[in-house]
C-alpha cells in the first residue's frame, strides 16, 4: 500500500468491494472537496456525501478551490473535467506542480479516450462518467481513501 495517493493507478472504479464496517467508520469525517461549475450537480453531490456523514466542501471553479485557505485539509478531491477558465486537467497539472497529498477523482459528461488517458497520466485516482451514480461515487471514494490509508482528521 503506498502512502502517496497520487500514484495510485486505477483506470476504473472499484465498486464498493469489501469495505468493512470499521473502514467505513474510518472514512467517515473525511474531508471531501467537490469542484464543479454546474451548481445543481455540485450541490446534490455535496448533499449526498454529507448524508453519508462526510465533511464536504463545494467549489464552483478550479480557481476557487486553489485559492481556498483550507485546501490542504482535503482528503479527496472530486472534480469535473469541463469547466470555463481552468478545466479539470489544468487543475490536475497545477496541483501536481504545487504538490498535493490527496487523491483526485475526475468526472465528466464527455469521456473521450484522450481525456481519460491524459487524466490518468496526470495521476487521477479514478475517471468517472456523468451522470454520476452517487452510490458508486461513494464506494469509489471509500475505496480510494481506504487504499490510501486515510482516516479521519487532518
Amino acid at each position, binding site marked *: 500500500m503506498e502512502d502517496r495517493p497520487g500514484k495510485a493507478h486505477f483506470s476504473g472504479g472499484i465498486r464498493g468491494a469489501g469495505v468493512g464496517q470499521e473502514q467505513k467508520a474510518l472514512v467517515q469525517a473525511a474531508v471531501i472537496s467537490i469542484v464543479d461549475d454546474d451548481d*445543481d*450537480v455540485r450541490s446534490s453531490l455535496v*448533499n449526498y456525501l454529507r448524508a453519508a456523514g462526510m465533511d464536504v466542501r463545494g467549489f464552483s471553479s478550479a480557481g476557487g478551490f486553489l485559492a481556498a485557505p483550507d485546501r490542504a485539509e482535503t482528503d479527496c478531491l472530486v472534480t469535473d473535467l469541463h469547466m470555463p477558465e481552468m478545466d479539470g486537467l489544468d487543475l490536475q497539472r497545477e496541483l501536481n506542480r504545487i504538490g498535493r497529498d490527496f487523491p483526485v477523482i475526475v468526472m465528466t*459528461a464527455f469521456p473521450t479516450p484522450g481525456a481519460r488517458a491524459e487524466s490518468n497520466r496526470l495521476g487521477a485516482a479514478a475517471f468517472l462518467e*456523468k451522470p454520476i451514480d452517487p452510490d458508486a461515487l461513494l464506494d469509489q471514494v471509500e475505496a480510494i481513501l481506504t487504499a490510501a490509508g486515510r482516516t479521519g482528521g487532518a
Partner: protein
Amino acid sequence: MTEHRRATPARYHGRKRLFLLIAGLLALALFALDLLSPMQGAVAVLYIIVVLLTAQAGSPRAVVLTGLGCGALALTAFLFMHLGDPFDSAYVRLGVSLIAIMAATLLSLRDRSARTTLAEQARLLELSHDTVIIRDARDHIIYWNDGAQALYGWTRAEAIGRHCGELLHSEVPAGAVEAALARTGHWAGEITRTRRDGTRIVLTSRWLLRRDPEGESIGVIESSADLTDQKRADAERQRSERRYQTIFNGAVFAIWEADWTQMQAYLAATVPEGADLGAWLADHPEDLHEALGRVDVRDVNAAAVDLFDAPDREALIGNSIPARVLPSSEGKFAQVLAALTADAGTIEQEVRYRTFTGRPIDVLLRMRRLSDSAAWSRVLVMALDVTERNEARARLEQASAELAHAARVSTLGQLAASIAHEVNQPLSAIITYGKSAKRWLARPEPDMAETVNCLDQIVANGSRAADVIARVRTLARKGPAETGRLDLDPLIRESVSLVEREARQAQVAIRIEGEGADVAVQGDRVQVQQVLVNLLMNAVQAMRNVEGRDRELRIGIAPAADAMMRISVRDSGSGIDGDPARIFEPFFSTKADGMGMGLSICRSIIEAHGGRITARNNPDCGATISLTLPLAPSAGGPSGMP
C-alpha cells in the same frame, strides 16, 4: 314670289305714307268727280284703285276702313245726286260700285295675308342652313337660297337659270326618284354633288314635286343637308369601333362590358341620402347582393369565355358573371362600387369566382367607366386569372416554411449534444438528491429538514430539465409563422442559453451589451430565435481556432431608424474572406460538411419580418452580423426606445 325685295324699314315707311297720301287724294278727287260731274259712268268703281293703293301700304284695318270709307263716299255722292229718283240705272251703277269696292277690299285683304305668309316662308327658307333649290320642269334653277350659296359656292346670280344637274354634277338615283315622285309626290335620299371648287359632297335630300293648280308637275322643290362631315365622322367611328372590337376580341386576358344602369338605379333608390356608400354596402350585404344581381353584361371576349370555362359567349351575357362571384368575395364590391361612383378612374380588386365547371378561381379585376356613353351604360372590366400565381405563392411559402423548419432541425442536431447535456445535469442531480433523501431518512434519527431540502432540490432540478425541453421544443416547432410581440431581453437570453454550453466548451465568453429591457419587437418567436441561435453558433464556430487573444462574443442591442431595433452579433475570429455580403447567398458555406442554407434562410426570415441583415468585417478582428427587426407597436406607450 321669285325675288323677294327687302326694303329697309325707313324707306318702307316712307313709301307707305306716299301710297296712303296718294290714295287719300285720289279718293277726294273721285268723290268730287262723282258728285259734280254729269258723267253717267260708274265713277265710283274707280274707288277700287284707292283700296288697292291702301292695301299696298296700310294695315288690314286701314284697308277695311278705306273700303268702308269709299263705299260711304260713293253712297253719299249717289244720295246727293239721285235721292228720290225712281229705280233706274243710277241705282244699278251704285250697286255695281259698292260690290266692286267690297270685292276689291276683300281680295286685297286676302292678297295681303297671303303675301305675309309667303314673306315669312321665304324668310324661313333663307334662314335654313340647309340648301333650298327650286327647279322648273326642265331642271332649271329658279330659286337658290343662302344655304345653297354657301355650300356650293355659286351665287344666286350665277345659279338662277342654270341647269341644276349640270351645274352641280348631281349623282341621283334617277329611276327611284322618278318612281317616288310619281307615286307620292316626294322623295328622300342621298345624292352626291360637286361643289364649285371641285370637292364631291354627299347630301341628304328631300324633294317635293311642284304642281300647278291643274295638278301638272311643273318642277321640284328640294331641301338638302351636307352629310360629308357626318359621313366622314361615321366612317371614322366605324373604323375606331372595328379596331376596338379587334382588340376586345383578340385580347389575351378576359374583357367584358357591363351595363350598370339598373344597378345604379337600385342603389339610388335604396341607399339613404348622404350615406357613405362603401360603408353602407358593407353593412348591408343583402342589398349589395341585390345590386350585383342587376348588372347586365353586354359583351364578352373569347378569353372571358375561357376564363369561366363557359360553353359559349351567350352563357356569359346577362347577369351570369356577377352571379358567379363567390359569397366570400362579394363584400369586396362594396368598395368597388363606392370608388367608381365617386368617380375614381380605374379600380383594381381581387375577387373569387366559381367557373361553370365549379372550379374556384382567383381573378384580378380592373374596372373603369367608359365616359363616352350615358353615365353607367358602359363599364369596362378587364380580368386576369391569378389563381395559379396565388397557388404558386402559397406553395412557395409552404416550401419556405419547410426549409426553415429543416434548418431549425439541423440546428437542433448541431445542438443535440449540448441539449442532451443540459438535460442530463438536472437529471443527475435529481437522482443524487433522491438517494441523499433516502440516506437522511435511513439515519437512526431521520433528518426531516434535510430530506425536505432534498425534495425541494428535486423539484427545482426537474423544472430546470423541463425548461430545456421547452426551449428545444420551440426550436423544433413546425408550423406557419405566428407574429406577435416578442420581448427582446428574454428572447436573446434564451437563445444564448441554447448555445451556452457550446460557447463554454469553445471557451467563448458571451457578453450582452445595450438596453434590451422593456423593448419588444414584432415577429414570429420561433423564426427569430432560429436566426439568433444560428448567428450565435456561427460566431462560436468562427472563433474555434483563435489563438493568442480572447474569444469574445458580443451581442449588441440598440435602436435603429424607422422604429426598428438593431441586434448585432460580433465575434473575435478571423473575419470573412472576400465580400461579406456573399455569406447570405444560398449554398455558401465555409464548412466542409456545411449545407450552406442557414444564413440565406436567416436573410429570408429577417426580410419577411421587414428588416435587413448585413455582415461586415470588424476593423480589429472578426466580423459582425447585424439585423434589424421592427419594434412591436406600443400599447399606448411612446414609440421607440423607452
